[in-house]
Every structure is written in C-alpha cells, then in structure tokens.
C-alpha cells in the first residue's frame, strides 16, 4: 500500500531511525578502531600478534552473533512492532559500550578482563543484529513506492558517519592529552561518551509512532504468530532469504568492509603509515564518500536496484588490486632515494617507578617527502646502563611512516574510491531487501541474511585477509600485500554472478507495502 508521504514527516522518521543507527554503528566501530589499544590492554602482551588476532576474533565474535540478534529482535519486531524493538536494541548497545569503558585492564584482574570484554562485545553484536533491520524496515514502511531507495539510503549513510565520528572522537581524545595519559585512561573516553549519544537518540525515538504498514497489519490481525517458522520453514520465503544472502548481501559485506576497515588496517599494519595520518585519511575519504549513499539510493529508484548493486560489485572486483598496489607504492622505500645527510638519530633514557627504557629514535628522510621514524626501545632492569647498539633480549621496535602531502591526498583518493564502491553496493540494499519480503515477516527475513552476509562474511574479512597477507609474506611472495584481497574479490564475484542471473525486475517489486 502506498502511504501518504509528507516530506517533513519523512525527515523526522529518517532522523529518528538514522540517528539511533548512527550511534549504534559508532559504538560498534569504536571497538574496531581501537583494536590495537584494546589488544594491549586486555590480552597478554607476550605475543603481540596473538593478542591482535585475538582482538580481531573478538571483533569477529561481535559479528558472528549478529545473526542471532537478527533472529531475536527480528522476531520481536514482527510480533510486537518495530518501534519498541529498536528502542531495546539502542539501549542494549549503549549500555554494553559504556561498560567496556569501565572494565579494568588485564594487568589488574587477569583473564577476567578479556572475558568481560568478550561478553560485552557479544551483547553489542546482538543489539546491532536487531538494529538495522528495524531501522530500514521502519523508514521503508513510511515511504511511498518510487522513493524508498532515497529515504532508506540515509540509514546506510549512518554506518559510514558512525565510523567517521568514532575516528574523530578518538582523534580529538588522543590529541587533547599526552600519549601516556591516553594510553593509561584516555582510551576509555570514547566508550563512555556513547552514553550521552544514546540518551539523545532514545529521546528522539521515544516520540515516534509505529510503522503505518505494521500498525495496519496489526489492526487487521495479519501479523505473524511465528515469523521464524514462516521465514525459514516456508520454502517460498526461504528461497528469497538465500537469494538475498548469496546475492547482494555478501557482496555488500565484503566490498564495504574492504573499503572501510581493511583499508584502515592495511595502511596501519601493512604499510605502517603513522596512525594519526591514517585517521586523517579515513575521515576525509569518509566525508567525501558518504554523500554518494543518497545519490545512489535515489538512482536506484530511477534505474532499478539491480544495476546499481552490480556496478558496485563489478568495479570492486576489477579495481581492488590496482588500488591497493598503488596504495602500497606510496610507502615502498626501495623505490625512493634516502637523503642520508638529513637522517636524525637521538637517544634518551626513559624512567618510571617500575621501568627503565633506553629509547633510540631514528628518522630517515626521502626525496619525495616521506619520513620513516624508527623507535628502538631497549627495556632495562633497575640496574644497567644504556649502550648504543646494545642487542639485549628485551628490545621492541616500532616503525611509522609519515607520507608526504601529495601521497596523503593520493591515499585519500584511493580510499574514497573504495568507499564509493561500498555506497553502490549498500545504498539500494535496504529497499531491495524490504521489497523482497511481506510485512508480516519482513523484520525477521530482512535481518537474518543481512547479518549473516554482512556480519559474518564481512566481519571476518579483516581476520581472513590479514591471515592471507601474513601467510604470503612468510612464503616470500613479493606481492604479499595484495593476497588479502582474494577473499573479497572471490566472494563479490560469486555474488555478482548470482545477482546477474537470478534477480529480476519482478522480484524487486514483490512487496511494495
């Protein structure tokens, strides 16, 4: 049924839905954005790689439980209503994020620390599993046929903006205090800040009315008593669930995560770019790329969902490898000329009540403006004198590359392109999924494939891709840094084929109420 759509009321509906979704994404992304710090705080220090992978796995756990969140809250949303269900998801996300900020470190409470963090991360995953399906369904059921892509694309925008805000908050927090203070307690602030944002969103959402399509179905007694059984025990509905999953949803998951989180991890860990520069690059690229959600959402209303979705998949498949090769070349020191006369070496003794470190810092300058900073820290006991060139056992080395201004803009452009691919695959997706399922089981049928495809396939991308890169590097592959891309490329290729062959125009207009 076509609902009357006043623009002013649609903006209110979009604001209420998108603000909550944005804040939930912020809460979720804070964890991923601070993976390196959380790794050091909550997992044993003895093996940094294991600690980092454990955090990635924990990050993955937050994604793996999302389908269960989709099942729980999708069922609730189809039985009691959209509005109340995603009030619950909002509060659950906010409280668990805030509590992460209170968990004592591993050094204080031992293995209880990572267990608590893991539990809270699982609660985040459950909440997010129920959020997006509700928000997108809610907006779609308020909007009229022919505009659904445009209005629901604002929900997709919230994911990128949520990530952007998480990076900005981290950046501001880092730069408003000393590195020692941030490392000691400042990292908790972005988690604690979520409680204020959740409160604001709660106040906005509390004033909303129920979705008109659901309200009508409820008044007619047409809601489902068992949406899970109807969605997955009914062959007709199940075939669309599977088609959605293996078609556009998995592609969106891997393409979107490559352009956002994988790009960030790649710059920080493989390219070893300074983390402050990485945040700047991501923030600018996200700011430039986010408006494309509404553009492509609007476009999908004009030319159809399928074409826009396929364009994003195809471009990602063709362009990912050349893009990442080009990104890596900005820091390939073998192809640059070092200005040896400008190199700077310093040493200092750093003492606290519990540690003495001898710190050797070397800065090397290159002809294109690249600067390599290497910090070699020799951990001394209470006795001992620092000696230049001392190869003791307790040595840690960190490297960071500051790229030149022109290289930075090149990286911004290359990440921006990837974000645009993500917008192509994401912006029509909510409208596509909503139109695939009837009102009575929409929240459930939408949420489960969405969270399986994006939550599991997309969420595991950083861990799988990092593993592929590490493996290739260990085997001496000169293009090791590109091997992580096979995961998104292969999955997007399969999804493109399925979308091309199976999805028809008739399918995208099955349920327009």
């Amino acid at each position, binding site marked *: 049924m076509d609902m009357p759509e006043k623009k002013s009321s649609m903006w209110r509906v979009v604001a209420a839905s998108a603000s909550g979704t944005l804040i939930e994404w912020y809460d979720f992304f804070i964890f991923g954005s601070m993976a390196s710090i959380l790794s050091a705080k909550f997992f044993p220090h003895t093996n940094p*790689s*294991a600690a980092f*992978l*454990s955090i990635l*796995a924990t990050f*993955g756990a937050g994604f*793996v439980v999302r389908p269960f969140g989709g099942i729980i809250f999708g069922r609730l949303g189809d039985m009691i209503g959209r509005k109340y269900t995603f009030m619950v998801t909002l509060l659950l996300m906010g409280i668990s994020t805030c509590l992460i900020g209170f968990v004592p470190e591993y050094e204080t409470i031992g293995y209880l620390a990572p267990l608590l963090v893991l539990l809270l991360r699982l609660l985040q995953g459950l909440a997010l599993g129920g959020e997006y399906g509700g928000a997108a369904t809610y907006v779609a059921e308020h909007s009229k046929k022919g505009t659904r892509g445009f209005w629901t694309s604002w929900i997709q925008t919230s994911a990128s903006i949520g990530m952007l805000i998480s990076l900005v908050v981290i950046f501001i927090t880092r730069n408003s205090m000393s590195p020692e203070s941030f490392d000691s307690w400042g990292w908790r602030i972005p988690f604690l800040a979520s409680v204020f944002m959740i409160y604001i969103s709660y106040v906005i959402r509390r004033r909303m009315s129920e979705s008109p399509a659901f309200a009508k179905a409820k008044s007619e007694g047409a809601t489902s008593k068992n949406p899970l059984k109807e969605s997955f025990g009914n*062959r*007709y509905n*199940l*075939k669309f669930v*599977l*088609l959605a*999953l*293996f078609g556009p949803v998995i592609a969106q998951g891997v393409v979107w995560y490559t352009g956002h989180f994988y790009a960030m991890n790649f710059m920080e860990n493989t390219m070893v770019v300074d983390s402050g520069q990485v945040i700047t690059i991501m923030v600018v690229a996200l700011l430039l790329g986010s408006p494309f959600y509404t553009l492509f959402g609007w476009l999908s209303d004009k030319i159809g969902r399928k074409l826009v979705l396929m364009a994003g998949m195809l471009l990602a498949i063709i362009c990912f490898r050349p893009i990442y090769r080009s990104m890596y070349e900005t820091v390939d020191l073998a192809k640059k000329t070092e200005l040896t006369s400008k190199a700077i070496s310093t040493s200092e003794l750093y003492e606290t009540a519990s540690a003495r470190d001898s710190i050797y810092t070397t800065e090397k300058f290159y002809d294109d403006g690249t600067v390599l900073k290497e910090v070699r820290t020799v951990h001394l006991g209470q006795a001992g004198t620092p000696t230049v060139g001392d190869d003791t056992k307790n040595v840690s080395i960190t490297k960071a590359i500051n790229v030149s201004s022109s290289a930075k803009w090149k990286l911004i452009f290359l990440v921006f392109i990837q974000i645009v691919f993500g917008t192509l695959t994401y912006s029509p997706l909510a409208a596509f999924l909503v139109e695939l399922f009837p009102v009575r089981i929409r929240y459930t049928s939408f949420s489960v494939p969405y969270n*399986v495809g994006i939550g*599991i396939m997309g969420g*595991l991308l950083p*861990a799988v891709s990092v*593993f592929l890169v590490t493996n290739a590097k260990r085997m001496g592959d000169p293009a090791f840094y590109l091997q992580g891309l096979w995961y998104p490329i292969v999955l997007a290729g399969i999804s493109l*084929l*399925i979308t091309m*062959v*199976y999805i*028809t125009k*008739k*399918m995208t207009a*099955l349920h327009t109420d």
Partner: protein
Amino acid sequence: MNTVRKIFGVIWMLFAIACAYFLITFGVPKLVSGTQEGVVFGIIILFILMPLTVAGLAVFGYYSVTGEYDENKMADK
C-alpha cells in the same frame, strides 16, 4: 534464463562440496594447532562459516535445480 539458473544450480551444489572440502582442510589444522589464534580461527571456520556456507549454498543450488527461481514461480506463495 530459467535453464541457465538450473545449470547454475548444479554448479552451486558442487561448489558447496568444494567449500566443505576447502574449509575442512583449512580449518582442522587450525583447530589442532594448539595456538590461541589457531583454535579461535578453527572454531569460527568449522562451526560457523562452514555450516552456513555449505548448507546455504547446497539448498540454494537445490532450489535452482528444482526451478524455484523460475519466472513463473515468483508470485507463488
């Protein structure tokens, strides 16, 4: 196009078998590696990714072969 979908249905079912083989050969060594990251990876691959991928692809392929995605089946409920 209905015929193409049916042919692809066979491919998806074969792909499901290939995925099962690949994920088992990849996941089992991880599970028994004894390392923390290996065990976590192995559990995720064998008990979450594999069932979803293999079962989902197999059913999807079966539906394709039996004509569930034919044009005239779109409006059936």
